[in-house]
C-alpha cells in the first residue's frame, strides 16, 4: 500500500475520518469520568403517582439520582421555544415548554423522568431498573383528529383543544376574491409524514467543571458552539462566562444537534455537584424516542387559475403536529418556514396560509433538513401537477407561464418576501434538456413489457435559506510564524466540509495554498459574532466573512508593501492575491510569497473579516422517473436529473455530495420512512432500524445526473446560495409527481408518502384500469 500525500485527499477533514482518528463525543475519556442514564417514560400519557428512586440510589456504583425537584431547585428553566407568534386576533401563542425532567405528568413515550449517575454506564443502566414508578394512564391522542376533537383529553391545562396557536399569514380576502373569479380551481391535501432524522452518531455529551476558573466545559456535537451555549445559558440561568461549549467531529446533524436536550443540562448539573466529569451517550433506541422528530405536517393546498392558466391565488391550510411540547423551532417551521416561500418560484398575486399548531402525545418536533421548506415546496408542486391534470392543462406550460421572469427581480411576493435573483425557466429547460424527454414514451412502453408502471415527475422548488440570528458573521484570521493561516469562526459542520471549502475560498481570493490554511470552529471564540450552521447558510455567511477577511489582509498590508517598494500606497492596486505597482517598475508581489518572506513576523498579521449575509433563494428543477413493479408494488428510481441554482460554487464535489445526500433522504421519506405511533397506546411502532427503513446502498437510484446552473446573488459578498437542504426540497415533489404519474396510467388517484410497496400494490389493485 503506497503512502498518500495529504493533498491527494479531497478534503482536509478526510485524513482523520478515514483513519478512525476523528474525535466524536463518545470517544473522549477523562480521568474519574462518571456515566449518566436517563429513566424514560414507558407511557404516552400518564400521571406519575409514585416515583421512588431510593433503591436506585443505593445500587452499587450509583453516585447521584436527580428528579424534576432537583432541576427546579437548581433554578433551571424549561427547554425554550424559539419563536412565539400571535393568532389573527392578536392572541399570543400558547407555549407549553418541555421540562428538563417530567414533573407529575408524562406526555410521550421516551420523556425523561429521572437521571442516574454511576461509576460505569452499565451500573447506571442496571440501577435504573430498580426505580419504582407508578403511572395512572390517561387517554392518548396522536392524530390531528383525535387531538382536536371536542372532549379530547388535554395534554396541557392551558391549551384547550390541544391547540398551541392558529396562525395565519398572507391576505385571506384577496385570496377569497381571486378564487371567486377563477376559471380553474383545484386542491390537494398532502401529508409530509413524521420522520426520525437519525444522524448516524447517536446523541452524546460530556461535561467537566473547572473549579479554579468556575467554568463548566461541555463537549457535545452542535451546529455551532455559540448557539448551544446560548441555549444552555438560557436554561441553566448560569452566567454565560461560566460555561464553554466545545464541538469536535459531528456525526451528522440535519438540524437535530443544534439544540440543548435534557441530557446536556443534567450532565452540567451533575458535574458541578459531583466534581467529576460526567458523560451520557444515547443508545439508538433511546435516540429514536428522544431526538426531536421531523416534519409531521399536513398541508391542504388550493390553487386558482384564470382561463389562460395564470395563477391568481394559492392558499394552504396546514396542520402542524409539534408533539407533546413546543420545543425550539417547531413554531418557526409551522409559521415562518411554511409561509416565507409559499408561492414558490411563481408569480402568485394572492397568498394565504393558516397553520393550526397542535399537541399530541408524541416526541416533540423541531428542525430536520429543510424544516418546513421541503414540505411547502412539496405541496406547491404537487398542487400544480394536480391542477394541471384535473383541468387538462400541461404542467410545464403552467410553470413557464407563471415563473417569475428574470427581469422582475428583485421580486416582492404577495406575502412580502423579496426574492433577489433567479432564472427559473432557463434552469428548468436545462434540466429538461438533460432528461431525455423524447425517449420517455418508449421507456414507459418498455417498462410495461417488464410488468412495471413508469412515471415521470418534474418539480421546480424554491426555498429560503436561513436568515441568521446574529447581526453579522465574523471570522478571525491570524498567521503563525510558519505562515499558516488559522481561521476561527462560530459555525458548526456535521459533514459539510467547512474546513475544506473555507480553505478553498482563501486560495481563490489570495492564492494562499489550502495546505497553509486551517479552519477551526469548535471552540468558544471570545468576542466573535457569528451564526451557527443551520438553514444552509454557512458557506455564504461565514464564507463572505472570509472573503472580506481576504480583502482586509490585502489592504492592511499595503503600508508594508509601499515601504518595500518605496512608493506611495496610492500607487498600489491589488487583485486576487497579488499587489501591483501602478507605475514605475510595475512590480508585482503575491500575498503568499509576502507572508512566507516575513518568517516569524507573519505572526503579526491578523484581521477579523465580517459580512452581513441574509436569506438567499436556492432553487432548481428536479426530474425523476420512477418505476413501480406491478406485482409487488416495489418502486425504483430509474433516473434522476437535477439542476440546482446555488449561486457561486466553491467546492463542486461537496455541492454534489450535499445534493445526493439530500435527494436520498428525500427518497427515504418518499418510499418508506415514517415514525408511526399506535393510535390507542401512543407507542412508537417504528422504534428502531428493525422497523424504520433507512435508505441503504441497494435501494438506490439507478442513474443520477446533477448539474449546477449558477445565478449570482448580490445578497452576500460571495455570491453563493445555500445547498444543504435543497436535495430534500427538490426530491419530494419530483418523486411524488413521478409516482402519481405512474399510477395515473391505471387510473389510480394520488396517494400520500411514504409510497411503500404495500400501498402502491393496493393502489394499483384498486384502480379502475388494468395495466
Amino acid at each position: 500500500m503506497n503512502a498518500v500525500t495529504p493533498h491527494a485527499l479531497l478534503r482536509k477533514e478526510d485524513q482523520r475520518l478515514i483513519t478512525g482518528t476523528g474525535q466524536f463525543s463518545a470517544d473522549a475519556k477523562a480521568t474519574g469520568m462518571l456515566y449518566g442514564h436517563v429513566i424514560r417514560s414507558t407511557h404516552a400519557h400518564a400521571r406519575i403517582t409514585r416515583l421512588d428512586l431510593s433503591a436506585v440510589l443505593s445500587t452499587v456504583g450509583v453516585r447521584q439520582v436527580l428528579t424534576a425537584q432537583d432541576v427546579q431547585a437548581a433554578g433551571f428553566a424549561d427547554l425554550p421555544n424559539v419563536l412565539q407568534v400571535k393568532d389573527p386576533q392578536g392572541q399570543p401563542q400558547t407555549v407549553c415548554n418541555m421540562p428538563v425532567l417530567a414533573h407529575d405528568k408524562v406526555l410521550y413515550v421516551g420523556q425523561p423522568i429521572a437521571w442516574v449517575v454511576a461509576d460505569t454506564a452499565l451500573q447506571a443502566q442496571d440501577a435504573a431498573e430498580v426505580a419504582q414508578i407508578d403511572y395512572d394512564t390517561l387517554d392518548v391522542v396522536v392524530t390531528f383528529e383525535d387531538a382536536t376533537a371536542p372532549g379530547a383529553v388535554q395534554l396541557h391545562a392551558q391549551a384547550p383543544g390541544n391547540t398551541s396557536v392558529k396562525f395565519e399569514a398572507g391576505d385571506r380576502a384577496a385570496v377569497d376574491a381571486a378564487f371567486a373569479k377563477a376559471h380553474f380551481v383545484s386542491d390537494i391535501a398532502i401529508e409530509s409524514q413524521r420522520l426520525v432524522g437519525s444522524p448516524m452518531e447517536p446523541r452524546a455529551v460530556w461535561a467537566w467543571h473547572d473549579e479554579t476558573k468556575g467554568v463548566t466545559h461541555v463537549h457535545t456535537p452542535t451546529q455551532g458552539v455559540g448557539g448551544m451555549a446560548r441555549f444552555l445559558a438560557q436554561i441553566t440561568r448560569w452566567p454565560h462566562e461560566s460555561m464553554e461549549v466545545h464541538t469536535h467531529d459531528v456525526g451528522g446533524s440535519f438540524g437535530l444537534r443544534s439544540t440543548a436536550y435534557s441530557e446536556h443540562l443534567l450532565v452540567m448539573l451533575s458535574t458541578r455537584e459531583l466534581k467529576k466529569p460526567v458523560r451520557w451517550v444515547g443508545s439508538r433506541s433511546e435516540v429514536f424516542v428522544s431526538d426531536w422528530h421531523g416534519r409531521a405536517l399536513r398541508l391542504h393546498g388550493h390553487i386558482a387559475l384564470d382561463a389562460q392558466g395564470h395563477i391568481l391565488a394559492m392558499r394552504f391550510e396546514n396542520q402542524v403536529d409539534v408533539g407533546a411540547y413546543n420545543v425550539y423551532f417547531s413554531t418557526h417551521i409551522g409559521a415562518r418556514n411554511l409561509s416565507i416561500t409559499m408561492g414558490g418560484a411563481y408569480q402568485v398575486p394572492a397568498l394565504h396560509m393558516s397553520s393550526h399548531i397542535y399537541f399530541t402525545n408524541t416526541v416533540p418536533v423541531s428542525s430536520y433538513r429543510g424544516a418546513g421548506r421541503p414540505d411547502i415546496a412539496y405541496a406547491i408542486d404537487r398542487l400544480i401537477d394536480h391542477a394541471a391534470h384535473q383541468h387538462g392543462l400541461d404542467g410545464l406550460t403552467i410553470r413557464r407561464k407563471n415563473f417569475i421572469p428574470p427581469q422582475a427581480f428583485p421580486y416582492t411576493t404577495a406575502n412580502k418576501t423579496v426574492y433577489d435573483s433567479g432564472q427559473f425557466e432557463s434552469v428548468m429547460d436545462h434540466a429538461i434538456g438533460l432528461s431525455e424527454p423524447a425517449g420517455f414514451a418508449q421507456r414507459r412502453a418498455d417498462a410495461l413489457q417488464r410488468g412495471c408502471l413508469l412515471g415521470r415527475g418534474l418539480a421546480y422548488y424554491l426555498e429560503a435559506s436561513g436568515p441568521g440570528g446574529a447581526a453579522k458573521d465574523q471570522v478571525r484570521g491570524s498567521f503563525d510564524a510558519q505562515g499558516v493561516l488559522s481561521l476561527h469562526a462560530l459555525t458548526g459542520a456535521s459533514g459539510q466540509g467547512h474546513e475544506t471549502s473555507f480553505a478553498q475560498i482563501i486560495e481563490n481570493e489570495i492564492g494562499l495554498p489550502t495546505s497553509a490554511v486551517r479552519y477551526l470552529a469548535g471552540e468558544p471564540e471570545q468576542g466573535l459574532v457569528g451564526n451557527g450552521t443551520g438553514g444552509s447558510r454557512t458557506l455564504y455567511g461565514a464564507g463572505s466573512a472570509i472573503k472580506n477577511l481576504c480583502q482586509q489582509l490585502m489592504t492592511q498590508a499595503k503600508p508594508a508593501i509601499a515601504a518595500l517598494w518605496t512608493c506611495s500606497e496610492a500607487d498600489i492596486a491589488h487583485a486576487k492575491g497579488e499587489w501591483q505597482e501602478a507605475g514605475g517598475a510595475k512590480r508585482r508581489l503575491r500575498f503568499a510569497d509576502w507572508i512566507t518572506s516575513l518568517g516569524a513576523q507573519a505572526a503579526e498579521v491578523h484581521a477579523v473579516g465580517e459580512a452581513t449575509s441574509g436569506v438567499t433563494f436556492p432553487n432548481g428543477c428536479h426530474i425523476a422517473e420512477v418505476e413501480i413493479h406491478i406485482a409487488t408494488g416495489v418502486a425504483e428510481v430509474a433516473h434522476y436529473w437535477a439542476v440546482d441554482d446555488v449561486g457561486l460554487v466553491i467546492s463542486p464535489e461537496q455541492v454534489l455530495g450535499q445534493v445526493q445526500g439530500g435527494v436520498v433522504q428525500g427518497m427515504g421519506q418518499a418510499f418508506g420512512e415514517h415514525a408511526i405511533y399506535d393510535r390507542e397506546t401512543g407507542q412508537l411502532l417504528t422504534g428502531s432500524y428493525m422497523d424504520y427503513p433507512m435508505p441503504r446502498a441497494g435501494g438506490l437510484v439507478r442513474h443520477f445526473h446533477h448539474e449546477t446552473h449558477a445565478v449570482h446573488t448580490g445578497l452576500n459578498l460571495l455570491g453563493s446560495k445555500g445547498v444543504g437542504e435543497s436535495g430534500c426540497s427538490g426530491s419530494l415533489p419530483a418523486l411524488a409527481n413521478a409516482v402519481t404519474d405512474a399510477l395515473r396510467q391505471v387510473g389510480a388517484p394520488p396517494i400520500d408518502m411514504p409510497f411503500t410497496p404495500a400501498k402502491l400494490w393496493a393502489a394499483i389493485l384498486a384502480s379502475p384500469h388494468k395495466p
Partner: protein
Amino acid sequence: MKLTLKLNGTPRSADVPERTLLADLLRDTFGMTGTHVGCDTTQCGCCTVHVDGQAVKSCTMLAVQADGCTVTTIEGLGANGLHPLQQAFSQCHGLQCGFCTPGMVMASVDLLRRNPKPTPAQIAEGLSGNLCRCTGYVNIIRAVQQASQAMQGDAP
C-alpha cells in the same frame, strides 16, 4: 474474564466482564475509538471490524468470543500510509461526517477480498449491512469501484 487477541498485529490481553461487547473492548479498554457504535439492533454497521479476516459487527460479539482471534480495526488498516479504499473514499467524496466511514471501509475491504471486481449492484449488496445518512451512497459505490481498479492495477 481474561482474554487475549491479536489487535492490529499486536498481541493484547484484557480482563473484562463477560458482558463486554467486542466494540466496547476496542473502544474503552484499548482506546481504539475509530470503531463506532451507531445502533443497538445490529443494522448500521458502524462497528464493523475484521475478526480472523472477516468483516463482522463488533457490537454483536462478546469480547470473550474474540479470545484467540486476530482482530483488525480501521486504525490497523493501511500499515504504510493509506489503504487504496481509504484513498478512494476520500477522492470520490464517499464520506461527509465520517461516522459510518470506518465501518463502511472495513466492510468494503472484505467485499473486495471476496469479489475483487464487483459490479455496482454487487457493491450495493455487499454494503447492505452498512448505513450512511449523509452521502446517499452514490460516491461510496464509486469509491469501492475506484479502489477495486487500483488494487487490480488498472488505471482509474
